[in-house]
């Protein structure tokens, strides 16, 4: 492997930002994202990037500044975690409805309260209905690769939406991992120059943005955002293929691991997918037909790809690292179960909420899930469909 390096997830993402060399980065520090902007700011002060770095007083301002810069015609980024994303919430909707291709890493961390700095996905799930594309990353390599591809996805003329790149706080952000980085010129030519069709500083073609939008047009504008999300599915796959050509690493809407002949599957996002793959390898050696489905894109939700990957399995467990408090399970459970419902294949779909506030997902936990699925197949019954993994009760 050439350009193999041993760095942390945060270092990998800062490195990707350096190679993308955006025009504007506006950010406010928050654990566990802090290192990303801290390292990036050193690239700025050392003159290794041409970026205008805006030190703002809050995340609400960070996204606001990124919106202003992006609307003006700049390639803009921010980065955040947890409470920062919560404070940014209002502006995230503005960014997506203004159709601004802002790329921002979200280093996943639990939302308060009780206050906690460790990993879960409650921050990301808070913006799942905001119109932002959400990519998830199993490890530092994927976080790095997703950052570079996110620029192309966001800026594609059929898409023009913000893209958040999610990776697990501490587990990925602060852990040293081995990955391969591309050289600067390869990244530079892959992301290309940002040439927006319409932007505020284009004096020859004046446009206005953020106008008051009444009942006569608001609805149509929302429908256009849905169409952009729909188009994003194809673009994510196309950009993934192009990226494979320069990196040798495959990227699509989902990552289907040993699912070809699987009877049981676990669906899970981010780093826990890696641990689940490890368990699958062990159980396969014992003759169990098991696999893992890791959605890479969570928004848009790639339901066609999920249906295709899971249509032959008999039982599925969806692992959610966030609660909805609906009493009907986690957020991804609802999406996966809905996607599989129309197949009419009588696939049993159950839910496990795990890892809230950074609770470690142990390999035995994943083994237990597959054990439960085996029982469901044997008895043909799934009585309890919302479960908690690694919880004291």
């Amino acid at each position, binding site marked *: 492997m050439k350009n193999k390096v041993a760095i942390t997830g945060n270092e990998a993402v800062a490195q990707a930002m350096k190679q993308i060399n955006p025009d504007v980065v506006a950010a406010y520090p928050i654990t566990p994202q802090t290192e990303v902007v801290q390292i990036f700011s050193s690239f700025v002060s050392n003159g290794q990037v041409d970026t205008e770095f805006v030190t703002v007083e809050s995340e609400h301002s960070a996204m606001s500044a990124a919106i202003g810069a992006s609307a003006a015609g700049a390639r803009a980024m921010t980065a955040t975690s947890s409470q920062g994303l919560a404070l940014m919430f209002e502006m995230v909707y503005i960014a997506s409805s203004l159709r601004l291709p802002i790329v921002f890493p979200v280093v996943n961390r639990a939302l308060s309260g009780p206050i906690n700095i460790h990993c879960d996905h409650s921050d990301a799930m808070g913006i799942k209905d905001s119109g932002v594309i959400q990519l998830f990353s199993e490890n530092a390599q994927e976080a790095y690769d997703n950052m570079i591809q996110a620029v192309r996805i966001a800026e594609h003329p059929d898409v023009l939406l913000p893209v958040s790149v999610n990776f697990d706080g501490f587990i*990925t952000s602060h*852990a040293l991992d*081995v990955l391969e980085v591309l050289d600067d010129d390869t990244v530079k030519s892959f992301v290309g120059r940002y040439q927006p069709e319409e932007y505020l500083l284009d004096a020859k073609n004046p446009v206005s943005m953020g106008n008051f939008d009444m009942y006569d047009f608001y609805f149509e504008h929302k429908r256009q955002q849905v169409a952009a999300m729909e188009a994003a599915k194809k673009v994510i796959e196309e950009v993934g293929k192009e990226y494979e050509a320069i990196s040798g690493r495959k990227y699509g809407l989902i990552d289907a691991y040993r699912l070809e002949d699987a009877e049981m599957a676990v669906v899970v996002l981010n780093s*826990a997918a890696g*641990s689940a793959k490890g368990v699958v*390898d062990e159980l396969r050696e014992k003759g169990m037909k098991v696999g893992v489905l890791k959605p890479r894109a969570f928004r848009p939700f790639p339901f066609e790809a999920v249906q295709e990957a899971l249509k032959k399995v008999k039982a599925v467990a969806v692992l959610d690292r966030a609660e909805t408090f609906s009493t009907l399970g986690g957020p991804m459970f609802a999406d996966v179960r809905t996607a599989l419902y129309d197949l009419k294949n009588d696939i049993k779909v159950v839910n496990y909420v795990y890892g809230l506030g950074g609770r470690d997902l142990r390999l035995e936990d994943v083994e237990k899930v597959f054990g439960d699925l085996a029982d469901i197949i044997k008895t043909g019954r799934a009585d309890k469909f919302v479960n908690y993994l690694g919880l004291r009760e």
Partner: protein
Amino acid sequence: MEKVLEVRWHARGGQGAKTAALMLAESIAEMGKYVQGFPEYGPERMGAPILAFNRISDNPIHIHSNVINPHIVIVLDATLLGPKVTQGVPDDGIYIVNTTKTPQQVRGILKITGGKIYTVDANQISLDTIGRVIPNTPLMGAFVRATQLIPYEEFMENMKAELAKKFKKKPEVIEGNLKAIERAYQEVKSE
């Protein structure tokens, strides 16, 4: 190496276990192996017990959970010797301990019959070579000796580069750290 080799570090906040776990991983990665290095982030206080982990493998490592059954345990602070140090360790586990005690004495404290125990006085070594008690780098020398995972010369070459990178603004401490690793490598006792 057939399986993933797992390492657990026991230390107190401020002793440099996280730095050591990451530096060890970086220098082993230089040899083309796959590695992970990560601490368990708790309430970060100077002096509080902390854990850090490594995984080392010839193949890419998928797993991201904490290390539960480490084959190698490194203890930076002898006051931590107790049941938590032996927890989950297989019978043929390796213990590398910073202490003035003998391996036999450590065995008695840990109440184990199997495994292999290495001891080194990393506090004194770091005081002599670096000028203050910072036992993390010497422990890496003991690790190299105990595991035979890496040829000593190659490890030192990699470590020289790592230290040069880490102490770009304090190059005067590099020599002392290298000396500390070398002395620990030579002085480590085992049984």
